[in-house]
């Protein structure tokens, strides 16, 4: 046998953090996603991009056990987890930040964050993580005992991400974090996502905003009506005339 070689860079690791094969899912008889395959290497930030109704949220929900997949498989760190219950997946390190923030409005900021750590038992560790999340998100610290419903949209998005971090995930599934935020806040949220990725967290990001999404991702998948139409590194995609034409408002070459 050849001596073990440690390749440089996270993407070269043998086993992907998340591997999805030919996943199909939908609601009732309506197909949402029609055979999507995708891989995310450990430490990688992958963006899944597409317009409204392309099936992005359905895809994330089928991965995280919120809805049942029709067919296909999901492998999490090489282990088959297709159709597993969402609470088991959170326990094994997959946290989903749902679309539209979904904080619990009648609970306080701190209670929301503590719920994020519901699957964990060691209360000492939870306290430490609570402190670190509150340090990361300054505005939340000041509003610690305030009801989450009284926060601004941006703060709610921060809380929603902070709550997911409380589960100590190895992978974060982010569903449309820029939705309904002002351009300045969108910038802040993406800066935060980049920070998390640079700290080594694996992230699968679903975005409608192709420019912002590719701007912070390592790799991207472009989705249209339930299937992947294009994939590649973020730079490749950003330079691709077709992408510029159909997603970034033109000024690319005619194809």
């Amino acid at each position, binding site marked *: 046998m050849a001596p073990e070689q440690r390749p440089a860079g996270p993407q070269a690791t043998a086993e992907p953090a998340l591997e999805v094969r030919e996943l199909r899912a939908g609601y009732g008889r309506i197909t949402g996603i029609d055979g999507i395959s995708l891989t995310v290497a450990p430490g990688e930030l992958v963006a899944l991009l597409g317009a409204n*109704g392309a*099936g992005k949220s*359905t895809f994330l929900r089928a991965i995280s056990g919120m809805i049942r997949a029709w067919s296909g498989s999901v492998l999490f760190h090489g282990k088959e987890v297709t159709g597993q219950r969402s*609470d088991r997946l959170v326990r094994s390190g997959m946290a989903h930040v*749902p679309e539209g923030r979904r904080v619990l409005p*009648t609970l306080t900021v701190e209670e929301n964050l503590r719920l994020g750590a519901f699957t964990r038992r060691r209360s000492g560790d939870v306290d430490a993580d609570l402190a670190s999340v509150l340090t990361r998100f300054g505005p939340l610290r000041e509003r610690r005992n305030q009801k989450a419903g009284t926060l601004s949209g941006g703060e709610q998005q921060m809380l929603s991400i902070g709550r997911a971090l409380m589960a100590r995930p190895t992978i974060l599934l982010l569903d449309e974090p820029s939705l309904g935020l002002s351009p300045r806040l969108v910038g802040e949220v993406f800066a935060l996502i980049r920070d998390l990725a640079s700290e080594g967290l694996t992230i699968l990001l*679903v975005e*409608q905003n192709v420019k912002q999404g590719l701007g912070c991702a390592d790799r991207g998948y472009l989705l249209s009506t339930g299937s992947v139409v294009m994939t590649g590194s973020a730079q490749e995609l950003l330079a691709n005339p077709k992408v510029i034409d159909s997603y970034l408002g033109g000024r690319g070459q005619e194809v």
Partner: protein
Amino acid sequence: MDAYTEAVVIRLGIAILLALGYWITAATGKFSFGHAAFMAIGAYTAAILTVNFEWSLATSMLISGLTAAVAGAFIGWIALRLSILYLAIITFAFAEIVKILLDSWDYVGGASGLFGMRGTTVELVAMCIGVVIVYLFFLARSRKGLSYEAIREDEQAARACGLGVTGISVEAFAVSAAITGVAGALSAHETLIITPSQFGAPQSLLIILFVVLGGVQYFWGAIVGAVVLTMLPIWFDFLDNYYQITYGLLFVVLMILRPQGIIGRSTERRFNLGALKKLASSRNGAGRDG
């Protein structure tokens, strides 16, 4: 305490126990429409044990609670993984089935009922309420209490937090059924005769009204609801035939003025304009799901 006061106090206590029991499942946002079935299961279990086997009432009540909990866990396990509409239908049907089975079961006297129970005491009722209140007091401050509120407010968000929503709801439902079963046992030893018809839909509805009237936000809201609904018929006795009408009107007015119940903050947005507006705007945004 004279016999009349004692009877009123015991009846009030049983109503409070029923309300508190129901509150536990309502706290997870799951409304049962057949809780009278668990009351019946508790009542018949205890009555069989005390009358036919001469067990003490206290021991029989424990068995009543256990039996009702098992039934509750079973029904919850079937119904709570589905939408709350299915829960309503399944619990309602379950209560009807229990009633029909009791009606045709000769061992417990069929439709003519079961009797021979000796009375219960104010102390026993008070003790049960005490135990339940202590439980709820600690529940409200615990992780579990927080998870109930999360499930009630937003099930999807609760799932995203890693809460095993179905498991938690089934557990709450079983505990709720257990308390209702104990209340049924006490009630059987207060009325001294039990018939299946006592445990029909009107009884289920009454239990729901205790909690809806009091408000689901805090458990003591359920106590207030139970006290008001038990005392109203006594206070409004002079209204005679007009009682039902007055009672109905009172309810309508209350639901308009305080949709969150007598107890509870008005920030709770249910059945009011804010909720409707929210619904309308989410309709407009429908299909945005990418």
